[in-house]
């Protein structure tokens, strides 16, 4: 990830993205100890069973499968199109929406259930103060399940 570790550490694009100083970035989630529901991000109460305590922190998997998608051709000004808006089920729990990259934006090239991995890249956009952001993306997983980045 040396490409994103420039002079200043980037900020996370979402609150559930952790950027440790000496390790790879990862996404965090919450698991309910009563009903085992998993959630992306932190929470104190389980919206599935209503449990008010016993919510544990977990690192979300970087591997998952494509649940559904759309190929977006019209977006807001300044957003480059087309891009693939993808909903991905993570292994071990959690569901994320994000851009599916390194695939042709063509329904013939995209398969439901295809294995994808979560990768972390510069968001490619800065805030009003010029700060850089790190975000997550999905890309097709290679047959060997390798984590080549």
């Amino acid at each position, binding site marked *: 990830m040396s490409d994103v570790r420039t002079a200043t550490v980037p900020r996370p694009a979402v609150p559930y993205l952790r950027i440790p100083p000496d390790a790879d970035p990862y996404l965090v989630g919450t698991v309910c100890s009563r009903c085992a529901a998993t959630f*992306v991000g932190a929470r104190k109460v389980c919206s599935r069973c209503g449990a008010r305590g016993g919510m544990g922190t977990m690192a979300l998997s970087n591997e998952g499968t494509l649940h559904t998608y759309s190929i*977006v*051709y*019209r977006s807001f000004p300044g957003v480059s199109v087309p*891009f693939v808006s993808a909903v991905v089920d993570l292994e071990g729990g959690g569901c994320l*929406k*994000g851009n599916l990259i390194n695939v042709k934006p063509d329904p013939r090239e995209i398969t439901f259930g295809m294995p994808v991995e979560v990768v972390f890249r510069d968001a490619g*956009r800065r805030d009003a103060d010029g700060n850089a952001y790190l975000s997550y993306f999905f890309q097709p997983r290679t047959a060997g399940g390798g984590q080549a980045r």
Partner: protein
Amino acid sequence: MSGDVYVLGIDMMKFGRYPEQTVPELGGQAALMALDDAGLTIDQVQALYCANLGQANAMVGQRILREIGQTGIPVVNCANACAAGATAFREAWISVKAGLYDIVLAVGVEQMGRGLLGGNRADGISTEGLLGSATMPAVFAEAGMEHARKHGTTFEQFARVSVKNHHHSTLNDRAMYQLETPLDTVMGAEMIAYPNTKLMCSVNVDGAAAAVLVSERKAKQLGMKRAVRVRASALTSDPWQERDLVMADVNTCTRNAATQAYEAASVGPEDLDLVELHDCFATAELLHYENLGLCPEGEAGAMIESDATALGGRIPVNVSGGLLSKGHPLGATGIANIYEIATHLRGEAGKRQVAGARLGLTHVLGLGSACAVHVLERVSP
């Protein structure tokens, strides 16, 4: 025990673009039309329930009364995404059902900009196009693709929804468009979010609709001839689902609302003569065929191909032209759908009349999610 609730008067203005008018003016116009339809005046109305999203914090209901008569009655302003109009109608229904009032008014009104709805803004950077898309065409495309994944539904089957609904609206002069769109035109239109092309997205328009609801006692007193009985009113939110923080679930809340409404009315989908459902995007209409029980699981694609949901078919859906072609002024949509059904039940729908219609269902879906279903019945023999 206060008996059934009846729609005594209901009307909608032609949906279109009215930039020169204010939201209260549009709402006031529809309110007066509905009062005229009921043969009543604002002095007789005991409460007002008003739906609007664009000015949800700006007392639209009270401003409507400033246009048409400030009688000092209670006003409730409702925002519930695209279910706002039906929510206002339902709140009005509840108040009469509870025996609190005999005559109440529900108004839905919206003035829309053009262009994409949805999107989001993070504190630091915009996430649209970075974390997928939160625009409405993409969100409902993803919901449609989930159906395609399960049942093999095709782009062409989704596109046929638009062909049908645009055709229907050629028979409805209150609709924004009266324009045929053949299949190749729909499929060849600008792709917005696959599989939704521009002609498969609802039209942003201005509009207003209003209904006068009365108690059974009052309906008997004022005349039942054109009254429409509210057989059921159901409102749900989305129960927990694994993906719902990422992908709003539009299906479960619709299924739950439909089940509750059929049970309350002691009817089934097979008893319906017509349906107005929330076709905010062509993909959505097919999902709701199954959600409302109009066809068995997985058969929505075949159902649109069979013309069963076209005017003249087994169960006509969105004979008004639907949100796709009549237009979708968010806060007004829920009451406009009820207007369409009521007009058929009264036998006053002209060229697009569903012959002999006795029982109809309306459905709206506010993303995030709120679902309202109403079952309406003709009273006169």
